[in-house]
């Protein structure tokens, strides 16, 4: 092996070549449709349907080639800030997650990384320049479901089983109740909270107890309710995901209030790419007008709902879309009415 003599000319050539090569590398990377790196951090496994909606939306964007997607699931709140910082340090451009239990701490992390965009599930206001918030505002399809439910109950009694009476659950209950009352003023409600986000046997027992009191239509905010409805031969309405197809709800689940994070996340990705990401409240991105919520198909129940009701629902749906009808948001704890 011979030692290369570093001549002045060679030195200059190297000295110039390195930055040029680096420059080329950077521009070719940018030319790759500016694929940004997005991290998802979830407090629950991605089988939990709330997180599943985020995961599915990000997965879709990754498959479409818009982003490079990495995620961590089942991150406890006590560990969340560490994971946030790790992803922030790893050089991601956008972090999508949930800050419900750690609103303050997550904002502090966002302050420390002003160049990274945060889109977090959070009940409070956006923060600083880079901390945007969202929550699922699917009360509009809940209202539409209530309208159908009101016409389907023969006993005029509807049962509702929820996890905890927090704002985002309460508003769905109230919208459902308002919708049901709009088509059936005589309808009454039973309300149960099981004090857990996932305990299907318990939710099922609550639903059974409601059925004993004469309830013949259920609103299945939590998993387990649909099974109770199936066993007792009554119908149920689903929440967040299409429970007719995804939770074994054939012949039981009339329709579901769907939550879609695709448009919200799509918007965030586009803004990050354009460099215009703002600390906004994404509330409207999870509502019907912007494609954040919708009513699932009726499937086999299509023939069982009267054409009149379907027309009413379709009409109100277009009114909600156009903004001429607003479903009231009521975050107070709902109570049984009979």
């Amino acid at each position, binding site marked *: 092996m011979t030692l290369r003599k570093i001549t002045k000319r060679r030195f200059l050539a190297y000295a110039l070549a390195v930055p040029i090569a680096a420059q080329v590398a950077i521009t070719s990377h940018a030319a790759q449709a500016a694929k940004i790196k997005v991290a998802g951090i979830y407090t629950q*496994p991605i*089988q939990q349907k709330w997180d599943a909606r985020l995961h599915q939306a990000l997965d879709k964007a990754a498959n479409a080639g818009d982003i490079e997607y990495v995620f961590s699931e089942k991150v406890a709140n006590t560990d969340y800030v560490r994971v946030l910082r790790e992803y922030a340090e790893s050089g991601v451009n956008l972090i999508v997650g949930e800050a419900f239990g750690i609103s303050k701490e997550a904002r502090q992390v966002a302050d420390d990384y002003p160049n990274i965009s945060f889109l977090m599930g959070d009940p409070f206001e956006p923060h600083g320049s880079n901390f945007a918030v969202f929550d699922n505002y699917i009360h509009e399809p809940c209202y539409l479901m209530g309208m159908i439910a009101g016409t389907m109950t023969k006993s005029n009694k509807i049962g509702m089983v929820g996890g905890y009476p927090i704002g985002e659950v309460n508003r769905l209950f109230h919208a459902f109740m308002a919708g049901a009352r709009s088509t059936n003023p005589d309808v009454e409600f*039973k*309300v149960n909270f099981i004090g857990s986000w996932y*305990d299907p*046997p*318990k939710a099922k027992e609550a639903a059974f*107890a409601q059925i004993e009191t004469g309830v013949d239509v259920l609103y299945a905010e939590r998993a387990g309710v649909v099974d109770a409805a199936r066993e007792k031969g009554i119908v149920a309405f689903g929440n967040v*995901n299409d429970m007719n197809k995804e939770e074994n709800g054939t012949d039981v689940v009339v329709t579901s209030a769907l939550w879609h994070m695709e448009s919200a996340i799509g918007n965030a990705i586009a803004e990050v790419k354009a460099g215009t990401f703002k600390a906004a409240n994404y509330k409207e991105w999870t509502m019907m007008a912007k494609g954040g919520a919708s009513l699932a198909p009726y499937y086999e129940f299509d023939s069982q709902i009267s054409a009149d009701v379907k027309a009413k629902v379709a009409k109100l749906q277009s009114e909600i879309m156009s903004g001429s009808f607003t479903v009231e948001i009521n975050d107070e704890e709902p109570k049984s009415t*009979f």
Partner: protein
Amino acid sequence: MSDLLEIFLTAGFWAATIRIACPLILGTIGELICERAGVLNLGIEGIMTIGAMSGWMWVYQGGDLWTGLMFAAFIGALFGLLHSLFAVHLGLSQHVSGIGITMLASSLSFFVFRMMLPSSTTPPKIVPFRPINIPGLSDMPFFGEAIFSHTPMTYFCFAVVPVVIYVLYRTPVGLAVRMAGENPMAVEAQGINVLTVRTAAVATGSAFMAVGGAYLTMSAFDAFYFGMINGRGWICVALVIFASWRPGKALLGALLFAGLDAMQVRAQQFTGGLIPYQFFLMLPYVLSIAAMIVMARRAQYPKALLIPFRRGERI
């Protein structure tokens, strides 16, 4: 008040009590067997979780429901053996080992679940045990719905109790187990290996716990999720004390707790809304503590509970 009394007169309340009690019965009986042999098993929460997962997974992979239960029992027994390795053979702290088993088993069950089903975004489902119609009995008024409207596994849970009582009090094996928890020296003097007796008791008890967990995924519901057990295991540990280490009373305790739970679900629905729902959710736990205060005064715990046995060691 009359509303409250009305609850007890509905068949649905009693049916719910029986359903809610099942996992607690098996868990409590399992814990009781371990403790009667002198070994506290705080691995119960995790063992119930892995039982719920493995039984469910067995069926999801195409297995039969009853062999699924056997598989859950087998996996539970394995974790029981692990616990006895630390707590019985090495004589380490039973508390620490038990908590460790709970953490290992619950994390491992989720790990295995996610490795085997990496992409599902909603927990997949199986066809679980279905309520069976018993000719004649199921059509009876009130009792038909309250008692004879359940799944085969529910009856199995109740059938376990008399069998355990018989074995524990009427057979030499049961005598050896009870002696290992009272006076292991006496067992040793009889030429019986204390460590073997305790290991077998812990493995058997853990198998019961695992099947109790499997009740939740194979009879009460049809899908697995990692947080499913939701503290039921810890309730069982308390129920053993409530039962003052007697299987018959354990059955009563499980039924009492389940009854309170079934009641709170119904009481929560009362109108008026003066009492927050959390109060009702809390009721079964508070009343269990109250009952325990009364019962525990006369509790007779196994004398060698928590004391590791080392052969040849002088006490």
